[in-house]
């Protein structure tokens, strides 16, 4: 089978199995993303326009976390416990094709939620955005990166409960301790340095650069780091699928 034909078939498989859950994923995505945007307003009583702009331009990044880094690992761990996982690998399709189809679905699945979150956040805080074409590569790369890292996590960690705890922790870290909706200058040096290595901050930087002028700096470095994380996630997934047993 050619790559294109098997990719098309696996894509149909992925879409068919996602069909039932897609509404729930979108529900969770909106809940967490819209929820945390509105929540920040309750935590910060007298919001300055600058802080509001940060929250709104950080909203799409928060909306990316639940799909790639939470629902994808959960889906894979469910496939493992339901034994669908082994069945998938037994199909007469090259394994990278299966991975490519999963990545495509999860990268695309995040998009509608991102738009809705951004619209609601903009209305809630009355912020004027300066959207540039840069937003397209930014969102696609950030989404692909979170799906790749999610896939790496899901393939690399076999224990479902550990994976569940880890993704719970990820949601928490993303919402509460990441320079996504708040400036990195508010963070203590060690945490800021840690975030300059981790991907969440860089996702926020590239997306913020596509939505505003002057709020994000050093965008090139952020693209580079996101690219490296994408490759890293895929490398882990590739190593796992290359192994037997």
């Amino acid at each position: 089978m050619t790559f294109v034909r098997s990719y098309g078939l696996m894509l149909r498989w992925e879409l068919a199995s996602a069909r039932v859950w897609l509404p729930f994923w979108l529900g969770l995505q909106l809940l967490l993303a819209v929820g945390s945007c509105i929540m920040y307003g309750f935590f910060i009583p007298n919001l300055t326009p600058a802080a509001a702009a940060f929250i709104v331009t950080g909203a799409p990044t928060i909306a990316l976390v639940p799909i790639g880094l939470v629902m994808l690992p959960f889906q894979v761990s469910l496939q493992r416990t339901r034994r669908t996982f082994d069945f998938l690998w037994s199909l007469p399709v090259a394994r990278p094709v299966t991975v490519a189809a999963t990545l495509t679905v999860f990268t695309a699945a995040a998009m509608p939620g991102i738009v809705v979150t951004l619209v609601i956040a903009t209305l809630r805080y009355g912020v004027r955005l300066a959207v540039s074409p840069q937003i397209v590569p930014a969102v696609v790369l950030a989404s692909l990166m979170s799906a790749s890292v999610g896939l790496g996590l899901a393939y690399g960690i076999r224990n479902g409960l550990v994976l569940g705890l880890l993704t719970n922790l990820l949601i928490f870290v993303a919402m509460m301790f990441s320079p996504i909706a708040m400036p990195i200058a508010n963070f203590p040096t060690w945490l800021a340095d840690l975030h300059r290595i981790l991907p969440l901050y860089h996702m926020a930087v590239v997306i913020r650069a596509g939505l505003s002028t002057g709020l994000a700096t050093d965008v090139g470095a952020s693209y580079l780091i996101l690219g490296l994380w994408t490759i890293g996630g895929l490398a882990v997934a590739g190593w796992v699928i290359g192994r037997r047993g």
Partner: protein
Amino acid sequence: MALDVGAARLPWSFSMPRSGAGYWWSSFRTMLRWDVASLRLDLPIVVIIQLIAGAGIVVMMSLLVPGDPPRAAVEYLAAGVPVVNLYLLGLVFGPQWIAEQRAADSYDATRVLPCPRSASLAAWYAVTLAAGVPGMLGTLVVAAWRYHIDFTVSPMILPAVLLVAVSGTMIGAAIGHGVGEPMISRIGVQAINMFVVGFTPTLFPVDRLPDWLQAINVVLPFEHMSALLRATLTAGPVDDLGLSCLVVVAWSAACAGLAAWAMGRRG
């Protein structure tokens, strides 16, 4: 005979009646061992996550706004985070653990064990309480250290902690046992967790919420759970503790009943 020796060690041996306080107590102890043994690898992780989460939320306050956060806000937050510590295992991780068992087809095996459902729920409650208290203490220590808060701890903290933990655990048990589809219960508890942290007056004062949300919170247990703990941790006035007690007890009882019903249901 070998069979008799083996059977005599089990709480549900044929020689014992399957009712009465003695049977309940031995079932409780067995289920407690069962839960601890099943989660032996995960409980240490849960306790560590508890410590990180509790201390983290307290410290997070200073990340949201540059400079020192206002004193009143910090004190309110510090007395509210222990609520999160006490419900986290029972309400958020518990249903996900049951979801995992359902997906792995091991749920029914646990359900058919011949022990009273109340003993099984009570044992799970003991586990969640034991996993929640270290996190709560960690949170309070970090808050006292980071913001120099002097907590005025009253002896009533003991019943308050027991009550807050029981409500979180029973709500979680009702969801875990009541919702058949793992994905839905998993998303549901994430939603509840998000709601409690962001849309109830657990971590910030009630006047920041819009009126309609304030009204909803009066009938939900979370505001009352935090009121109970706050009253035993701070010297500040807390309104109508009797009502809070009543609401929390009512939710605990209703959810315990729902969980027990769902555990005994067929099909």
